[in-house]
């Protein structure tokens, strides 16, 4: 095993550490898995949530954010390139193992949704983890995700175009609020418990809102 033992490289650069450590990998993985468990628990307590959308089916986009939070939450906590993508993709794989509606295409969904958040954080050069970044990332996931659902995999080819855009709009609102805002609030609350002490986000609770 050729682990680099780095005898004299006191890191002088103040740039964020980009490389993933073992703890980053394991915590990111567990966030994805626990998201899978939360989906599972929610499915149990909200079985038949589908009935809410009977009157206007595109409004089901309003809960899409519930399936997007792992990407934003993972990125806000881990703060490494690829964290959003990895967490969302792994959460999709876990939900596939737990029995998902969407078969193999769930991997495609996870990949595309994760990319939606990853693109946002990358464009901020992985330096900004505040509320605006979180909300834009949540919206980005919904945008990418619905684009995939409506135009690539095209789950509802018979929907009229206005209905497709209505669905997309509902989903983006949901992504901004549930995946963005809620993940940001949750990250700060988790940081306050001290559970993030070995991660880059350990001071998340003291950072400015727009940080």
């Amino acid at each position, binding site marked *: 095993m050729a682990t680099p033992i780095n005898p004299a490289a006191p890191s002088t650069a103040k740039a964020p550490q980009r490389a993933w450590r073992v703890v980053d990998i394991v915590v990111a993985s567990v966030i994805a898995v626990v998201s899978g468990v939360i989906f599972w628990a929610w499915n149990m307590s909200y079985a038949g949530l589908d009935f809410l959308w009977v009157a206007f089916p595109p409004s089901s986009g309003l809960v899409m954010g519930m399936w997007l939070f792992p990407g934003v939450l993972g990125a806000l*906590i881990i703060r490494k390139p690829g964290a959003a993508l990895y967490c969302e993709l792994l959460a999709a794989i876990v939900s596939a193992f737990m029995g998902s509606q969407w078969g193999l295409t769930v991997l495609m969904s996870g990949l595309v949704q994760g990319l939606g958040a990853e693109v946002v954080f990358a464009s901020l050069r992985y330096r900004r983890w505040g509320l605006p970044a979180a909300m834009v990332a949540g919206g980005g996931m919904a945008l990418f995700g619905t684009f995939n659902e409506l135009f690539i995999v095209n789950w509802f080819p*018979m929907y009229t175009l206005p209905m497709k855009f209505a669905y997309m709009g509902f989903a983006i609102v949901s992504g901004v609020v549930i995946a963005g805002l809620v993940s940001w609030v949750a990250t700060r609350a988790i940081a306050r418990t001290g559970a993030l002490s070995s991660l880059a986000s350990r001071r998340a609770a003291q950072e400015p809102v727009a940080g």
Partner: protein
Amino acid sequence: MSAEVTGPETRTAGARHGDPAGGTAPRPAGSTAEATTAGAEVVASGWGWRHAGREKPALAGVDFRIAPGERVLLVGPSGAGKSTLLHALAGVLPADDDEAESTGSLLVGAGAERVTTGLMQQDPETQVVQSKVGDDVAFGAENLAVPREEIWPRVRQALDAVGLGGLPLDHPTSSLSGGQKQRLALAGILAMRPSLLLLDEPTANLDPDGVEEVRDAVVRVLERTGATAFIVEHRLAAWAPHVDRVLVLEPSGGVIASGTPEQLFAPGETRERLIAAGVWVPGFVPEVSVDAVAAARGTAGGPAGGEADRTASPAPAPCVAMARGLAVGRGSAKRGDAPTLAGVDLDLTAGRALCVTGPNGAGKSTLALTLGGLLPEFGGEYAYTTASGRLPRRPYRWRAADLVSRIGSVFQEPEHQFVTATVREELEYGQRHARDDGGEPLFSEEEIADRTDRLLERLRLAELADANPFTLSGGEKRRLSVAAVLATRPRVLVLDEPTFGQDANTWRELAELMLAERRAGTVIVAVTHDEHFAAAIGAEQVDVRDLAEHPGTAAPAGNRGPGRLSLEPSARASTSYLGRANPLAKLVALACVTIPLVVSMDFVSAGIVVAATLAMLPLSGVRIVDFLRRTWPLMIAAVFAAWGTALVGEKTGEILFEAGWYSISTGSVTGGLATGLRIFAVALPAVLIVASTDPTDLATGLAQKARLPHRFVLGALAAMRLVGLLAEEWQVLGMARRARGVGSNGSPWQRMKANGGQAFGLIVQAIRRASRLAVSMEAKGFGGPERTWAHDSVFTGRDAVVVLGGLLLGVVAVSAAMALGAWNVVWAS
């Protein structure tokens, strides 16, 4: 040469020290049949460490020299940096963290030999990395790049050495008891052939039998290998006879005393000092002071001090709650499950104290949850009589707000019951939510403020009133979780292992609190192995098996039953034709089947795929019942997708129904049916493949054949192993929070809030677990660029058949749809 563990300048990769050149696979001395490795020398000179984000160092100015093969017991009050020292020796402190600071030097191993270390931690769940016993033991050796042919002999040897040789290598790790999991962790370390063993409270989470079982295994291993050992443990009596030296550490300081156990634990200054710091020195049991009890009476909920002790008073005490022929268990009689315990008769009379003992899995905790009104009775009767009779007699039927002022439950893990963000709110929460028989608030704001202040004072938490409960020390968390339950003055108090892992000072305080409660007439039922605690509060001790008229078929220790959420395939599915195929081949086949369905929406291709999947069911070994259990949500999803398209899809053909701006046409109904069938057809084959695929095989294939980075693949795999545990924790959290007055039977908004809070609690627990799991994995050498694999991912003729089968099905589906003119590309519409 030796490597220094000195922080930013030297990166010590997990579990390995020495030979900074690295590069080659380690070959410990004597890597032949017998696992003999010489012990390593350990020298600290003025060593210290400050964690990132902390002001004070965890340790400073530590000096010692430990000879090869010496066994050292590290003792000191909580916060003395014992775990930090072990982590440093294991090479898992984040040396590359700019915010952490290290001073002095810590040398592991002298001379040219390579030093491998093994670290064992407290929480058995995070010591296990893999889902099968053999794989888990092999994990560390794989990370050290031990050649495959050498790994399996090491694994068997290590399992024999810790007394687990009788288990098959593919035995699931999730069905082991806590003590067995710890021994398994020890075997994994042993397979790495370490010359330094680091044990961080290896028995703190175990019952007395488990403690001996693990201690004996450790002692046996040390005798066989001659490895040097550092042991941190709360209760010293079990270890003192087996160690050569004791080092006493001081918070933020260094070694303040060093000597043999006989010297340091003999009556004298050091012993007194340790006792004052709450250390469980051998032969010491804290005295519960009667004065403290008297002082507590005024504040801890009871009547004024002068009243006669009810337990001693001749008048019969009133019965608060009673059980008649009570059966407890997790399942339900309707589904044919057996109760864990049956025929329990109990009179919970005011002031009665009962300590329930018994082996793991005998139903102690299940009984406690049932008495706490958190689990439904499996059978028989459990009734609590209220003065007004307005509440149902069964506590399980009550709302959480009714429960808190009547029956209080204290869970083993304090964090499960924290529901607010500050210590003060934590104490106020239950009081504010408590309701009297008429449904009115039980306490006024003044009463709440007054009682909260007194509890803060009494439990020495006043200075921490604004702190986040999760940031407290272990002892403070325990005191807070008990106080938060006592704050609402329940008449029955149910506690699950309240003294587990507590230092002697917290232990004494708990005993005094309980004694005061008892004298005030509260019923106390405690599940505990702690005989001293039972004696201190004057409780009757009952073995749970004697409580039951006829003990049920208790599940063996550690077996969580068939209901546990798991990502593993059933034994039948994993040995089926598809189960033995390479997961990558299955994925390719699945892609061949899925792509046509993604491209086209038509009844023909979708129908063929559904029919073919059903026909292949026998190949996957998945039972029809399981298959239906996994697929019914898909059917519902398909039906709703069909409905959605029928309602808002494009209108063509004849209009069937019109109301306002809703309309359904023949065209939209056909479109809806096609949409639904397509969704169903996409999902169905995936269910078949997933149900017969072992995540471990998938990970092995992805890392070896698909060349995905192994750190991520194995990290994901280790996390996936926690899924069952986390699902169980979700349920425990639900009950623990109900006992605090949260949730159940509120408005949809309250329910959502309660569910959100529960999800938050789960995430916090999961991240903590993940951090500990990361330490375990890193300590086992995980994270390096190269490793060997105990299993080889291979492609066989079977895999060619699987891929060809998938390809054939895809081609048939497409050609049939085209031939019949049904082919309908979704992007074209």
